[in-house]
């Protein structure tokens, strides 16, 4: 297989974007400093001016710039999302990544030549769903939910050849179907769907109780870490809870996704692009993981083994990784 996988990398700040480009990204994705994207953290993301500079830098370097406008537009405030689409078109991005049907409709009719990618937040979890968005809005690429196995991926690429497929291989793993999870807003009032945040930092509290580090979200205890035990961010679905009389990581261990070893299988299944999650991570993370994946992809294209993302191990939650739903036993 000589077709090279496209490497899609996150950028939370212009310096992270530069790091991604230097490390060998084929495409970078970023968002604006508001709730139109699903990493709406304070201090993160790009102003319109920074977006224009970033797009220009990317074009100079032959990298595809993409802007995530992947939250669901709030009724009565649709103009915020429309403006984001307008700005993205104006600065000359290679694609926008959308989830909301209203936003997709606006983009498709206003900028028919602007490439539309379907965000994982749209939860297109089967070939029929992909076909729906392709039919209505001519989406060119779909980012598949992290619930898919490699076989599921193959079903999509086989039955929807007109739509490219992009899958996550590294970073934080959503254990619930993306775009339709309101765990965060149940506890905190803010959600990834409307506000672009999951388990928002404003509601996070870490407290040392003696040797134990307690993490809380909106007052709910999400985890306790013993001395020396690797810690994690109190994302609700990665917490330790009590059920049936015992405490455990009920939904998912605080691990990160690392499907690097599966690159050959993903390529064989017809995947066009592989995606790194992590706009909220620092540029050190981006530089390390992107560089590693660049080598892995190039090695694969030259017929060699992909290797394991060794340096990623130092960057992961709990110090551990999983291949997630790509392996069926995860379910």
């Amino acid at each position, binding site marked *: 297989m000589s077709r090279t996988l496209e490497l899609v990398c996150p950028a939370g700040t212009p310096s992270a974007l530069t790091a991604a480009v230097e490390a060998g990204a084929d495409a970078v994705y970023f968002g604006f400093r508001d709730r139109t994207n699903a990493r709406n953290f304070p201090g993160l993301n790009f102003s319109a001016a920074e977006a224009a500079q970033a797009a220009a830098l990317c074009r100079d370097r032959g990298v595809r710039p993409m802007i995530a406008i992947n939250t669901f537009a709030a009724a009565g405030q649709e103009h915020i999302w429309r403006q984001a689409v307008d700005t993205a078109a104006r600065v000359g991005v290679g694609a926008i990544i959308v989830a909301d049907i209203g936003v997709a409709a606006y983009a498709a009719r206003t900028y028919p030549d602007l490439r539309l990618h379907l965000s994982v937040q749209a939860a297109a979890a089967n070939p029929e769903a992909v076909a729906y968005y392709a039919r209505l809005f001519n989406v060119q690429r779909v980012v598949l939910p992290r619930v898919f196995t490699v076989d599921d991926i193959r079903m999509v690429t086989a039955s929807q050849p007109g739509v490219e497929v992009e899958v996550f291989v590294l970073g934080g793993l959503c254990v619930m179907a993306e775009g339709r999870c309101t765990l965060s807003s149940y506890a905190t009032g803010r959600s990834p769907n409307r506000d672009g945040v999951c388990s928002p930092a404003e509601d996070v509290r870490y407290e040392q109780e003696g040797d134990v580090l307690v993490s809380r979200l909106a007052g709910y205890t999400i985890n306790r870490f013993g001395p020396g035990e690797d810690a994690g961010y109190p994302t609700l679905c990665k917490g330790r809870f009590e*059920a049936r009389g015992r405490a455990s990581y009920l*939904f998912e261990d605080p691990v990160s996704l690392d499907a690097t070893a599966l690159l050959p299988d993903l390529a064989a299944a017809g995947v066009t692009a592989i995606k790194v999650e992590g706009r909220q991570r620092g540029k050190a993370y981006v530089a390390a993981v992107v560089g590693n994946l660049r080598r892995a992809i190039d090695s694969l294209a030259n017929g060699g083994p992909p290797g394991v993302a060794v340096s990623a191990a130092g960057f992961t939650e709990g110090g551990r990784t999983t291949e997630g739903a790509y392996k069926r036993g995860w379910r």
Partner: protein
Amino acid sequence: MTRDVRLTLGPLLYNWPAGQRLDFYRAIAADDTYDAVVLGEVVCAKRSPFVSDATLEAAQFLAQAGKEVVFSTLALPVTPRERAELADICGMAGDGVAVEANEAGALYLLDGRPHRVGPYFNIYNADTLRVLARRGATSVCLPWELEMSSVEAITGAGRDLGLTVEVPVFGSIPLAISARCAHARAHGLAKDGCQYVCGQDAEGMAVGTLDGQTFLRVNGTQTLSDAVLVLAEEIPALVAAGVSALRITPEGVDMVAVGRVYRDLLDGVVDGAMAEGTLRALLGDRRAANGYLHGAAGAGWERVNATA
């Protein structure tokens, strides 16, 4: 208020055995409180083979009792078997059979024919509603997460389009769905080989924090709120906004009594405060919540202003 606002009994979320389901639906059929009943498996396709006969039987006697019957569909169909089940149900749509789509795959299969859209699909604004209406949606149930201003805006657009807009008002709140089964996982099993342990918990498995605070419930692959949605004092505002149906999700309490409270509220026989009191009593020690509609955390309880 008025009989124009209908009461819909939402789909049963829990894995009740066939006999229990039939008893439940017979009681619903024998009473005239609910105008429409939504049947079908929304959570996990593994349950379907055991309950589909009972579901079809219930559909028949509910229809004979004058109820409108709607078939809902899986919230997360991924595997070939799940997609096949989805295709079967969507294939039934038309000829007096109403089918409700909960995700885009069902919308594709129903595209161009009259259909409904359920609360698992993200309708957050009027633009989205307009697109769905153009593709054949005749009735939608809005997601649980919406606050009042969004409900008003979308409902207004619905009225312009001639669509029925329904809002969930009672019952556990579905917060998330996954390809992984946390219910099986809590028993040391996986979704393959799950032994249908979800059937052991008639109202879902309680999940608490390490401090012993009740928090969530797990129902197979679905995560629910531990608190029960109870909208009562908010109902007049919803009706005024043009909401034409209230969706009530079945719990393990007297659902006929719950329905009657809402009917009495709509008919002006009781006011919001009295309705809330009766509903809380029916819930026993389950906590009530109404935060989402008030733009707050879903688990919270917000007092409604007397002038609302």
